[in-house]
């Protein structure tokens, strides 16, 4: 297996030129940004529907990563991993997304629904509490150590000159694109999506035309958490392991991405995620990897200074979910 890491022998070793360097960094940024976008969608959708910043969202992402690790380890133990890797991976994605969707619906019922009539601060504090509860729950049940992902999948990559695109990056970027397109179709082209948008605009009015707002809210949580779970597995595959506290930093970045794009706006969250990921990578690649997060947040502050609603955000908008 060690050989699969190496470049083909016919490629002579040399330094990357400026263009190749840019392209390589662009691909890195696209991978990272795609994962941020998937997480950011959950923040923005929930905010759109009930105006709540769901701080427990990062934990859905971590839980998704864990479920994926457990399922893949189980299937690898049975030996299916070598014979049917694609089926194993699909199973892991589906189970983990389903689990997290279920978890999110439960969290909403326990922690947010009873507070829906209370002040928004109460729900926000409840969200913070839920985040701590879930993250510590994962620590207690799964241990403090890193859980290892089987790294045999998607080894190697495609070489264009000196630029290497790993199969894993190809998988992550294409799957993210599929999920984003699928979500857009769901929200803007189906009856359910129309109901979601109606609930987001006015709960009372939509209830009058027989749209059950409770169902729609649950559905929003479920979809958001499902996307975060998918991001969690990608993260585990990409970085090799998952940890109970891994939801925190990507959660904050994705939240920043959602705000940058205009919280409540789906297209905005996708765009925001990509921008934050790109800025982080390019700041690290061209300026300083120590201060890459600083640059990501400078962009956020800059945009909010000139356009407080975010890039795509508007006060009244029928694209809001």
């Amino acid at each position: 297996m060690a050989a699969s890491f190496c470049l083909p022998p016919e490629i002579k070793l040399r330094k990357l030129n400026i263009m190749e360097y840019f392209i390589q960094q662009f691909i890195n940024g696209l991978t990272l940004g795609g994962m941020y976008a998937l997480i950011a969608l959950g923040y923005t959708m929930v905010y759109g529907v009930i105006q709540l910043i769901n701080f427990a969202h990062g934990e859905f992402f971590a839980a998704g990563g864990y479920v994926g690790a457990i399922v893949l380890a189980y299937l690898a133990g049975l030996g299916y991993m070598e014979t049917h890797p694609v089926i194993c991976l699909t199973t892991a994605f589906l189970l983990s997304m389903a689990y997290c969707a279920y978890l999110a619906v439960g969290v909403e019922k326990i922690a947010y629904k009873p507070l829906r009539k209370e002040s928004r601060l109460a729900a926000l504090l409840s969200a913070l509490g839920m985040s701590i509860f879930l993250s510590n729950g994962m620590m207690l049940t799964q241990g403090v150590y890193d859980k290892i992902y089987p790294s045999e999948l998607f080894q190697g990559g495609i070489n264009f000159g000196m630029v290497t695109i790993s199969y894993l990056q190809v998988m992550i970027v294409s799957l993210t694109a599929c999920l984003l397109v699928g979500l857009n179709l769901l929200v803007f082209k189906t009856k359910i999506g129309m109901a979601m948008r109606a609930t987001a605009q006015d709960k009372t009015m939509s209830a009058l035309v027989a749209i059950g707002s409770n169902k729609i809210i649950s559905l929003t949580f479920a979809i958001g958490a499902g996307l975060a779970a998918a991001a969690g597995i990608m993260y585990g595959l990409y970085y090799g392991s998952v940890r109970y506290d891994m939801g925190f930093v990507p959660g904050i970045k994705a939240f920043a991405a959602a705000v940058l794009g205009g919280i409540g706006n789906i297209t905005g969250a996708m765009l925001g995620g990509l921008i934050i990921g790109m800025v982080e990578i390019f700041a690290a690649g061209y300026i300083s990897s120590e201060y890459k997060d600083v640059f990501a947040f400078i962009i956020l502050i800059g945009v909010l200074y000139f356009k407080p609603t975010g890039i795509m955000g508007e006060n009244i908008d029928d694209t809001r979910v």
Partner: protein
Amino acid sequence: MRKKALLIMALGLILVPFLCSAVYAKTLKIGSMSPLTGSYASDGTDIKNGVLTAVEVFEEAGGMPGYDKIEVFPQDTACDPRQAVAAANKLLNLEVVGVIGAYCSSSTIPSSEVLDEENVPMITPASTHQDVTDRGLPYMFRMCGRDDDQAPASANFMKESLGAKTIFIVDDKTTYSQGLADGVENACKKLGIKILAHEHVNQGDKDFSAILTMAKRDNADVFYMSLQGYSPAAMMTLQAKRLGLKSQIVTQDAVFQPKYVEVAKDAAEGVYLTYGFTDPATPEYKAFEKRYVPKYGKIAAYSTYAYDAATSLLQAIKAAGSTDPAKIKAELMKLDYQGVAKHIKFRANGDSGSSYIAFKVVDGKFVPYWEPVGGLIK
């Protein structure tokens, strides 16, 4: 009146067992400090297990004269300076006679100041930063090597064995990792190895693709990775190989952990590490192995050093026949014996010498590869 006297007598009787336990069951208390939670928990647990094993062996060999038992108080430092200082204060309140720890240099340095004020001897099994012993604290001892020995050893290895002409250095800005990376940079300059870049990442970072692309662009002969702990190092190695980085990867003692190979798997093959040399053929090592492995599993990085540190402390207390810090120190300085990890002989500043050699990851194991005097190890 008679009733009152009876009552007092009864109360007195109730207190007797407490008085007895305080007077008769004499316990010798020693502390252990290491990260038991967080990213470095595996190394920290090894240290705790090493200390516990040492106490077990010592008690079986007759124990401490004048004491019924020896109790270890393991404290969690989480590799956090504030928590380490709190742990040191807690150990002082428990009135321990000596402390084994801590793991991260950034924990050992501030907590040793607290312990030294109360003249409590501290032996670190794992903190390699030079300032641990260079501050001149009278009760600070070190069982492992020093970074200003590790850095030149590493640079020599890169030049002599790998024939490196250029190097790309990355660290994650902890007291230990940055100090060592700076040392490697200086040592490389002296040997004429060109420093292409010395970059920093943050603790807790997971995505290293940008910095690795930079390393790929510069294409140095050696990619030197000075990270605190196996976990970020494993992630960086995986990402480096996936990106097609062709530089030889050299890293250091904090990565010397079987878990590093477990996470990075094939990507870790051929990575070089510097770590203190331990001869696994000595009878001391074999005896330790026989006792440690069935109970705690694999001998990982610092359990042997922790064992030697605790054994040295206990032997010094026994020889001193008291818990007076000055006497313990005098006895520690007299020690001269073959331990599990190395030969133990403390120097005036509290150091016990370095023995850095280069290891190479071969088939998922750390194999001794090169040593400063004789060159390649067959």
